[in-house]
């Protein structure tokens, strides 16, 4: 069973806006197959997704515009299926198949 879960991937949609697109190939929407468990065998959560995005999706070297001190940079909002991540457990939220995760920056000007 553990083998099956380890190899499984969760299909999700990740969106970036508010200026974060520029870190991810200038593209707003990305379909991502997220490993169902992290390196320690724990189910994938938002903290893991953030790491995964930095390693696998980010084309821009300026990681610090997205992550600061191992956490999402303050000033970036996360919406999980349109709900504020603060209502969903923030980094600990366990990702479900077909979730839509939106990262939107409040840090950029007009």
């Amino acid at each position, binding site marked *: 069973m553990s083998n099956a879960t380890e190899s499984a991937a969760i299909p999700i949609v990740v969106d970036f806006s508010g200026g974060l697109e520029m870190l991810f190939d200038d593209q707003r929407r990305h379909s991502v197959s997220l490993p169902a468990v992290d390196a320690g065998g724990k189910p994938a959560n938002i903290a893991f997704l953030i790491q995964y995005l930095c390693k696998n999706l980010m084309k821009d070297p300026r990681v610090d515009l997205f992550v600061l001190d191992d956490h999402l*940079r303050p000033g970036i*909002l996360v919406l999980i299926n349109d709900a*504020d991540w603060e209502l969903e457990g923030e980094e600990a939220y366990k990702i479900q198949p077909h979730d839509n995760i939106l990262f939107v920056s409040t840090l950029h000007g007009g």
Partner: protein
Amino acid sequence: MAPALCVNCKTERALIKRPKNHAKLCKTCFITIFEDEVHHTITSSQLFHRGEKVAIGASGGKDSTVLASVLKTLNERHDYGLDLVLLSIDEGIKGYRDDSLETVKRNAVQYDMPLTVVGYDELYGWTMDQVVETIGKKGNCTYCGVFRRQALDRGAKMLSIKHVVTGHNADDVAETVLMNLLRGDLARLSRSTSIVTGDNRSEVKRSKPLKYSYEKEIVLYAHHKKLDYFSTECIYSPEAFRGSARSLIKQLERVRPTAILDIVRSGEDMARLVPGESPSSCACKGQKTSPMVSGEDDIGGCGSQNGRTSGNEMAAMDKQLRENEAHEGLEVDVAMAMSESKKTGAKKQKELPIRSGNGTSKNAPRQVRGNCSRCGYMSSQEICQACMLLEGLNKNRAQIQI
């Protein structure tokens, strides 16, 4: 985790957690409450009058787009009777302003508001690209800032409009309060907290109706209402100091979300202690801002004084401060410090009168509002800041430091 229900309607699923009070709201209730609060700020501060023509300083970014959308909604809902127009400034930075100006043009159609774009080139004879070519990237933000401040006013004047609203939000105000605190510039700190700047004597009044709105909620409002806005960063160097203040504010917000409004309120309270400066918080009691309001006037509202007692301590301190002659030196204008520093070659920092009341502060003239002898623009100096910077540019020796 079971989805939480909206604390307001108690039927819909909550999607927003408000930073100011942790209330969990559904999308519909959030949008209504956000608009109601801006309406409250507008009415309690008596920001507008019926039939007024108001220019919205529009950059195509989230703040001004939300401001335009909310003002249009409220103007219709509450029958303010306002004539709203969009006013955009083109700094002349290729590859930066182009996309956002396209957004503003779409906004003009979406909100059915006429749009005017004024360029630095037509106003000053210089685009920012040309400025940077001449002086380099270092310090260019000063030029851009001074020019922009006047550009909105001049644009408004061209349209015979006497009131410009900008999208400055609570985070912006908190950031400015912190910056001025860190610079020891209480006079400017005081002015920056006012919801209205400019008074009866100035030609164009400025106000910030989103002064109490969290940036987070502005972004969420734009998201849930699917507003069309554009995010960008100036291609020339960002202001490092402001950037640090911004990061600090955002980190504080993570730990204690109420911190942002608390800083805004602290700024308002500190403003009351600055002699000769006009205090301004959300004037729930219907007070009008006037430049020489005495310190004891009650400017309570929107929590700045709520829950406090008579404020005897504050009043006493205020009185003491006003009796202290040294206060004359507190009002320092950049331009004045600039001309001083030019003479002495010293940096502005050294020119700032210290609060302990020394010789310089007694000699420093109080700011008297007049007009720039060159361009006629309102200025407390013989020559306004923009003309001083332009003089330097035109002589191609722009070494003026602020």
